[in-house]
């Protein structure tokens, strides 16, 4: 026994890298994804700590400070009502995060059970759910959201619900396809042969195995949802003034492009940075969770 160990002296060389699980090493090989993840976490921290980062009230107007260029007192300048743009960008991250995350949570909590049931039971129920999904998907995302906000009235909550409902069919389809593939696997069949009921099969054997694919899809849809919220707010169908949101800030900025261009820079740059980071981090997560793809 000890003789064989002695015969393999070269193995410890690989040890330092071996301290990390294989998946993590794979991620660290993609510095862009790590950076993306770090920026996303920084935005989360910014949203949570908004009151401490931005000392100024984002809704406080100051008539002596209207459309002032960036300065020491106002690093991002001020807007048309003399409000501090830095504070508004920081507070706006709350709205974006809320809308981005909660809408996708809604889409998952509606879409996954429906897709699970459709893919597991098949038959007439599957047909009904899938035809409804087809019809739901025929409405372009934004137009569906606009239609729903028209019915429900513009507000952050309603915009979040509308975006969530718009994203739901993607999750129904994805879950159904994953369930169809997973339910045919041997381990599911053997669990069934051991007498596991439908509920147990779905909850204990199928769902945990499709979870990582759903998580990867979430990293794709959250940035889309964040942009969608900004678009709805930009159109005036989302967050209502005076609550700061990147979309409403850009809406206001549009009227002052020649006199106060900085009003348009920062909120847009914030959306861009956040969605780009989400996409980069999502790519890394895909590598980590989906070995087939690699």
């Amino acid at each position, binding site marked *: 026994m000890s003789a064989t160990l002695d015969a393999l002296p070269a193995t410890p060389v690989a040890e330092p890298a071996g301290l990390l699980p294989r998946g993590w090493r794979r991620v660290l090989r993609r510095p862009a994804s790590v950076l993306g993840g770090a920026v996303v976490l920084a935005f989360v921290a910014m949203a949570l700590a908004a009151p401490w980062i931005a000392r100024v009230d984002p809704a406080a107007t100051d008539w002596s400070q209207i459309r002032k260029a960036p300065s020491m007192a106002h690093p991002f300048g001020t807007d048309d009502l003399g409000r501090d743009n830095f504070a508004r960008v920081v507070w706006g991250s709350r709205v974006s995060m809320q809308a981005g995350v909660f809408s996708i949570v809604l889409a998952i909590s509606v879409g996954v059970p429906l897709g699970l049931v459709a893919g597991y039971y098949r038959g007439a129920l599957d047909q009904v759910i899938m*035809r*409804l999904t*087809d*019809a*739901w998907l*025929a*409405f*372009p*995302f*934004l*137009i569906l959201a*606009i*239609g*729903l*906000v*028209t*019915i429900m009235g513009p507000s952050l909550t309603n915009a979040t619900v509308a975006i969530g409902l718009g994203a739901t069919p993607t999750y129904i389809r994805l879950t159904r396809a994953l369930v169809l593939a997973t339910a045919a696997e041997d381990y599911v069949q053997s669990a069934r042969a051991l007498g596991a009921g439908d509920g147990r099969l779905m909850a204990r054997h199928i769902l945990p195995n499709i979870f990582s694919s759903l998580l990867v899809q979430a990293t794709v849809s959250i*940035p889309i949802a964040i*942009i969608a919220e*900004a*678009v709805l707010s*930009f*159109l*005036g*169908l989302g967050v209502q003034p005076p609550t700061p949101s990147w979309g409403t800030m*850009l809406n206001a*900025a*549009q009227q002052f*492009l*020649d006199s106060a*261009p900085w009003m*348009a820079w920062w*909120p*847009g740059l914030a*959306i*861009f940075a956040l*969605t*780009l980071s*989400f*996409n*980069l981090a999502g790519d890394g997560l895909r590598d980590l969770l989906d070995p087939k793809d690699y």
Partner: protein
Amino acid sequence: MVEFLVRRVAISIVTLIVISVIVFIGVRMIPGDPARVMAGTDADAAGLEEIRAKYGLNDPIPVQYLRWAALALHGDLGRSIRTRDPVVTTVAKKLPITIELACLAVLIALAIAIPAGVLAAVRRNTAWDVLASGASLCGVSVPNFWLGIMLILLFAVRLGWLPASGFVPWWESPIANLQRMVMPAFVLGAALAAVLMRQTRNSMINVLGADYIRTAYSKGLAGRAVIFRHAIRNSLIPVVTILGLQAGALMSGAVVTEQIFVVPGFGRLIVESVFTRDYPLVQGVVLITASSYVLINLLVDVSYSLLDPRIRIGGTP
């Protein structure tokens, strides 16, 4: 083949029926008297009565739906509350503008995506590939309305090369028309270009690994001839499908783009009708958008099955 077509058309019809039910119920979910909703707040009692009679608002809901659907099939989607014009006429006036915008956007997207995608695939894992993929990632991540605002800031405000917004019909002045369309078309095409470039790169890489490409090389064809004559053509088939699937995104994008550049098209009509609470117009526009999306995808599927015989046998998912 016939069976595939029949199945595909049947599914599309079912989808269209479900869409019409959703749209019908949607407008009914707006709180308040449906006649008041459809006629607008300033309608008099006679106007309300006329609406009630036309749509039979005292009948059971399924009967009301059938009557509405029958009218819709005859091209009667009601009248706009604000202008009193028939919804269909209003849409017919606005739609060509958006179609021009969308066509220009697709042209711009293809002109960027195909060369970039092919280059990235042929020069895989080089600086070109990284550059193209990075640009594509940025294209997907950049909010198009912000891109539009930044372009206005640069080309209209700073450099003064292009007018910031507005619209001139092409028959009045083709040059003025293009001057005002190029920025919105680029903004609308940017995200599409990003998606198409990724698709072109992936499918080109797949094709380059295929046996017939190796055969073409081994029979002595020059690299350029293999790529242009064999690889690109075959790798573009999946790109066509993606283009069809992106039709919906293009419509959503048009809403935002037309809003920023003040293009009086279909997308702007949607936003305007929402703000004026012009429910018949919203209803008609949403119905037309969703139906055309279904029809576009039906056409894409059918043309795809003609291009690639393997699809027909597999049937629809």
